[in-house]
């Protein structure tokens, strides 16, 4: 009798203990680009470990501001922080997941993936220098493709976004004129065209304007069956957007010589690399402000890199290639001290 009571008490105590030890809720904030995959990962992760992840997709700028203030356990940003900024606040950063950005067009009779554009031409289109689709430069890249002779209308994002950041970064890498006039950022002064709010705004505008060209996240273009283009990459090869070509960009980008992974991987050198591939950086304190939370956060990202590939793929993101995961784990071991 007595022993049974004791046993029950022990069980209750153990379960209580177990629960309190497990129920660590970590919070993060920032980029909306990673929000879908983070929320899917965190649901599975919570089922496995009981630790919940609360992520607010408030925008990269706000994410960085909040981690600087130390109100969250990690920030997520579509643009890397500079080495000086990281050092100043005692922060470290590493990439979490990879995705692609694709140009989309509304040209009657041109199928998805049929139209070919190279970087310089894409930049000139966005600079407003190509007036009609019958331009000889477009025809020269697309022999045999029947392109309607309509006016070119450029569509860009009106809201500040990581998508715009990576797209304009690519254009400044391939066009000196873009680099000197417009530069790159989450929002820029667009030389031409109209602005749609969010992926849905851009894709709706592209659907509504014959002869328009825009850019959206690959997952969005694929889900909504919008006609995307091929691009010529840095190696001179014609590439179609896909998980394979995004992964190729992530693994051929020169991460080794980039301190704190401070590298924007657009225009990556690999033969198979899709030129506008993007990642989101996770930003955390090198010297933890809350050891138990930091431990769970690291455990979560480690778990996601090792087990999250299929879930990422179902959302048309690409998990990080193995070589990069190894580098990140080495970076953790070297830089983060708990």
């Amino acid at each position, binding site marked *: 009798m007595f022993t049974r009571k004791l046993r029950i008490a022990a069980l209750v105590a153990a379960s209580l203990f177990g629960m309190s030890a497990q129920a660590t809720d970590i919070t993060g904030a920032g980029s909306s680009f990673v929000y879908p995959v983070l929320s899917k990962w965190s649901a599975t992760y919570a089922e496995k470990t009981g630790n919940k992840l609360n992520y607010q997709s*408030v*925008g*990269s*700028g*706000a994410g960085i501001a909040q981690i600087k203030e130390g109100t969250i356990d990690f920030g997520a940003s579509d643009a890397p922080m500079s080495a000086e900024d990281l050092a100043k606040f005692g922060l470290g950063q590493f990439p979490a997941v990879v995705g692609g950005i694709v140009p989309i067009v509304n040209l009657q009779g041109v199928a998805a993936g049929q139209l070919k554009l190279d970087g310089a031409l894409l930049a000139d289109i966005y600079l407003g220098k190509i007036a009609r689709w019958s331009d000889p430069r477009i025809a020269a890249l697309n022999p045999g493709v029947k392109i309607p002779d309509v006016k070119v*209308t450029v569509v860009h994002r*009106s*809201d*500040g*976004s990581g998508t715009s950041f990576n797209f304009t970064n690519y254009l400044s890498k391939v066009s000196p004129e873009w680099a000197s006039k*417009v*530069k*790159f*950022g*989450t*929002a*820029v*002064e*667009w030389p031409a*065209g*109209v*602005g*749609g*709010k969010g992926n*849905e*705004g851009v894709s*709706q*505008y592209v659907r*509504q*304007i*014959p002869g328009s060209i825009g850019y959206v996240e690959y997952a969005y273009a694929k889900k909504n069956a919008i006609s995307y283009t091929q691009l010529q990459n840095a190696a001179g090869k014609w590439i179609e957007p896909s998980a394979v070509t995004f992964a190729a960009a992530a693994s051929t980008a020169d991460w080794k010589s980039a301190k704190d992974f401070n590298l924007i991987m657009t225009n990556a050198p690999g033969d198979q690399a899709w030129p506008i591939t993007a990642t989101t950086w996770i930003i955390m304190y090198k010297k933890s402000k809350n050891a138990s939370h930091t431990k769970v956060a690291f455990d979560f990202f480690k778990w996601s890199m090792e087990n999250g590939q299929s879930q990422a793929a179902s959302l048309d993101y690409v998990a990080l290639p193995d070589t990069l995961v190894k580098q990140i784990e080495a970076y953790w071991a070297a830089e983060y001290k708990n």
Partner: protein
Amino acid sequence: MHATVSSNAPTTARAEEAARNARDTRNDRLFGGLLKTCALIVLVSLVGAAASTLWLGRDAFATFGWGFLTSSAWDPTNNQYGALVPVMGTVTTALIALIFAVPVSFGIALFLTEIAPNWLRGPVSSAIELLAGIPSIIYGMWGLFIFAPFVATYIKPWLMNNLSADPPDGKISWLVQHVPFIAKFFSSEYPFFGAGVLTAGLVLAIMIIPFISSVMREVFQTVPTRLKESAYALGSSTWEVVWDIVVPYTRTAVIGGIFLGLGRALGETMAVAFVLGNTFKFTPSILETGSSIASTIANQFGEAEGLQKSALMAIAFLLFVVTFIVLTIARLMLRRLASKEGS
């Protein structure tokens, strides 16, 4: 003893009365203070909000000075900002909205109070109130997916054919040839694209109609039946009763209702962000794309830093200023009307 009792009774009664009076005075004062606090909260929060946008926008005002008001630049990578295009866009879309919303709301309110049969009044009034409760993002999505394509297929080509210098059908109309400058207001770089200043104004008009018409309906009901019946008895038509009795009787409240709608149109964010096209090019044309203050803030605030954030706060402060100016003009108009009536 008898004397003491009789002299005491009124004294205690009087003392009680005095105590009650004192209590009442104190309670009245407390109640008055409470009410004053309620009213002051509005004033304090208004001044606080305006002051904090001014404070957070100080960098932008200090950097660009008066040029901030006249510059049409909005260049985050080179940190050059100007408020001209957003301010213009805000005022133009709100004015277009008023031009369409006021007559329609007037018609709705008159129909409901003067003409509609009783069984119809209830359902239509509830429908209008429901319309006022629809969140603005719904209007934005509707505008983006349905109304903008409609404008692009039907309204915009017609306007451009008749009023612009580069019509899609190639024939420049008589009006454009003979009226100077008119073509400037109806030109468009994207003839097949529905989003723009006019579209945003029309969506705003639909959004503010419920506000204006329900205020108008309420105040039209306050007109004494005696006055209306007398006018009818003297042989007035319905229109004459409305124009000479109902409208003068309710003028102040009607204008108040219109300005309630205007306030909403000036500050509307999501619906406008979806159908305005979000460009920062200065143009007088209502068929071109543009930007408004609220849509610019909604678009860029999430990722803005440093001077860009400050510029966004600065235009937020300008929205206060614009609204304040508009309301002051309204007050002056009302005062002038009142003094005319007096003379």
